[in-house]
């Protein structure tokens, strides 16, 4: 189909050809390198946090250092890894290919968004390292932030700038899906990954400006003492929380929706079956995007919000469970009577199903008013959102990277190594975070560097924390192993065929092993759905073992 010696990777050479590229595939790779580096940084910080908590008493970090380390861990992981990663890496690389477009609608804006992201990222990390340590937590609640050192201005400015990167990415994808689809690529033939990125784009465009203006107001609060959020000046700290969560709760769906899209594609491909309830999965993404805007108040059940608003926010929170449940049951139904092929990406898809369901259901639990009063600010909440953000979003990302790796690099990775790493990640993750559900229900508060004072009443805190720390090391080993075999595959891995998984969507069926610079020789004419596996093998190519 395409001349193998000529592809997007070798079409132009040199560092500048990358830094000045407007090719959506290359920008995706640049996001992958950047997000990978920040994931490593955030992971190292997490290891510090867990090591400090491994045994009672002060071990490697003092009280203030501990606060600073978990703050940077949160900021890096949320704003520099989980929010940008899937749209930035896989959305950029895959979405135009999946709809048969030559590029996104605004390629230069796409490159600009990468530079904005990098500018924000460098400001955040350098501000923290060289200007002064910030210990407000990733939420920058006032009055912590209005009373903190001026270094907090670097982080909030970074969030503002990186926010625009997110807006431009989302805007680009919405326009691309509306205007750039190949002939015959109707809305009900869009792959579910594209549907999910589209729904994510809506949330990015509608929610991110609000965190932007919140960060501007916080900036002015510190610079001019404008008295909007700072209680010492007559401002209202709960107003800050409303503003903050009006973005940051929808942001949870910026993180999880694209991962859900990846899982939908993986379920179809590796069950070799039409994805059950295609329309319902597609529209439930849009429903989640919409409902996600109506639930921010559930972060403020104990912050002095009126009882009536709390009741309404609690009820709306339960509603999110409906579209989410629709997805989970349809994924399970997709596997039913399919020919499930357990390769590494599918193992991550199953892992997602298991971990995300735990994360989602515990979310319903903390959405219950009375229960939340007990669990608020405990390790139960920490465990819950790590199950959603890591067990959901990042496991989805890792599964997606394994799935599209051959298309991005033209190489296969070692399947045995992939399976072993996946098992390590699964065991390590559950050991780290499932123990924290127990800690939380017993009342261990989050953001404490030392828990020795609780040991008289709850001696089991010591062993649970130790188990959690050991789990985090196993998780770390699994993740490092992925990095090692990925790098090995990049240089020594066997060459991939154009469609090693026998998948059905355009990026596999209509491009070479590594796509051309302009994706397609001729614009594809789409005559079938994205998961029409009931058609003969020879239409899509048989799956080939590496």
């Amino acid at each position: 189909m395409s001349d193998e010696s000529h592809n997007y990777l070798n079409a132009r050479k040199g560092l500048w050809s990358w830094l000045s590229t407007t090719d959506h595939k290359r920008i995706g790779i640049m996001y992958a390198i950047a997000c990978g580096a920040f994931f490593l940084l955030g992971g190292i910080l997490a290891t510090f946090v867990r090591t400090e908590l491994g045994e009672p008493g002060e071990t490697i970090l003092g009280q203030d250092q501990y606060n600073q380390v978990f703050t940077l861990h949160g900021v890096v992981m949320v704003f520099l890894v989980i929010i940008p990663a899937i749209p930035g890496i896989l959305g950029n690389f895959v979405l135009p290919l999946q709809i048969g477009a030559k590029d996104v609608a605004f390629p230069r804006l796409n490159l600009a968004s990468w530079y904005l992201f990098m500018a924000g990222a460098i400001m955040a990390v350098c501000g923290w390292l060289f200007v002064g340590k910030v210990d407000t937590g990733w939420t920058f609640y006032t009055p912590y932030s209005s009373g903190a050192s001026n270094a907090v201005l670097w982080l909030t400015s970074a969030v503002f700038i990186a926010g625009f990167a997110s807006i431009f990415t989302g805007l680009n994808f919405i326009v691309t899906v509306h205007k750039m689809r190949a002939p015959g690529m109707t809305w009900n033939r869009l792959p579910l990954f594209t549907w999910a990125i589209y729904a994510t784009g809506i949330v990015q465009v509608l929610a991110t400006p609000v965190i932007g203006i919140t960060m501007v107001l916080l900036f002015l609060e510190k610079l001019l003492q404008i008295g909007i959020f700072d209680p010492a000046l007559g401002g209202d700290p709960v107003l800050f929380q409303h503003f903050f969560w009006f973005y940051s709760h929808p942001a949870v769906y910026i993180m999880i929706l694209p991962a859900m899209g990846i899982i939908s594609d993986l379920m179809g491909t590796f069950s070799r079956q039409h994805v059950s309830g295609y329309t319902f999965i597609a529209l439930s993404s849009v429903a989640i995007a919409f409902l996600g805007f109506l639930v921010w108040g559930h972060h403020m059940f104990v912050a002095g919000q009126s009882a009536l608003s709390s009741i309404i926010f609690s009820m709306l929170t339960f509603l999110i469970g409906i579209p989410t449940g629709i997805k989970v049951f349809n994924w399970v139904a997709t596997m039913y009577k399919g020919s499930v092929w357990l390769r590494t990406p599918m193992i991550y898809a199953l892992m997602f199903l298991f971990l995300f369901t735990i994360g989602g259901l515990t979310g319903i639990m903390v959405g219950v008013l009375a229960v939340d009063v007990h669990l608020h600010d405990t390790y139960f909440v920490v465990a819950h959102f790590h199950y959603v953000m890591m067990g959901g979003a990042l496991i989805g990302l890792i599964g997606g990277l394994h799935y599209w790796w051959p298309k991005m690099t033209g190489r296969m990775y070692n399947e045995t190594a992939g399976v072993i790493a996946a098992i390590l990640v699964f065991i390590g993750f559950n050991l780290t975070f499932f123990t924290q559900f127990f800690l939380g229900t017993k009342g261990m508060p989050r953001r404490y560097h030392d828990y020795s004072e609780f040991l008289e009443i709850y001696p089991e805190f010591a062993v649970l924390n130790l188990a959690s720390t050991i789990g985090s090391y196993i998780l770390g080993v699994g993740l490092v192993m992925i990095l090692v075999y990925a790098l090995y595959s990049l240089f020594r891995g066997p060459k991939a065929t154009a469609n090693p998984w026998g998948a059905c969507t355009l990026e596999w069926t209509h491009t070479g092993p590594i796509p051309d610079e302009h994706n397609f020789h001729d614009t594809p004419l789409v005559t079938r759905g994205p998961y029409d596996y009931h058609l003969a093998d020879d239409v899509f190519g048989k799956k080939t073992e590496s």
Partner: protein
Amino acid sequence: MSSADTTLKHYFVSHEQQFDAAKLGMWLFLVTEILLFAGMFVAYAVYRSWHPEVFLQVSELLDWRLGALNTVVLLASSFTVALSIHFVQKGENDKVVVLLIMTLVCAAIFMVVKYFEYSGKFSHGVFPGAGFEPHGIVDGKDYSKYDIPFAPQFFSIYFVMTGIHGVHVLVGMGLFGWLTTRVARGHFSPQYYTPVELTGLYWHLVDIIWIFLFPLLYLI
């Protein structure tokens, strides 16, 4: 499509597709602008509903005549920019240049009026937030009588909202200057005038936001 046609990007099939994509993108960007200002409008609504009597009293310090003048100036500029899009569609570029310069002049008048309003306030100690120490007598109003609780919040909101709006006006002035030179150099035709149309959309939004700011801050 001739190879000399440099206005059609290679990844689009037709001018129509390219124009529609650009316009949809601009509308989405305007949505983000509305949400950016929405945060400040919410802050206004919250503090107004908590302290209505303070807002009522302190807003007397703003001169509604200057606000009304700026409203008229901005409405006029919206009219000239709409006409410039009409004429660029008909290919009458001479008129487009004149109309864009008129728009630019209106925007400049707006900023000059804003400058006098701001400096008048600053000279009497009316600053946003903690620097708020009103003094002196203007138009028979003793400013020191307005030093009451939550008056600083009103002026914080006033300066932040009109300040960020003013930044948008400055950006618009830059865009109009850039557009004028491009029109004069003959870059646009009835087949390709996307930047004029998109800047027009942006300018109407800047206008609409002022239409809300003026009554909320000056009149009620």
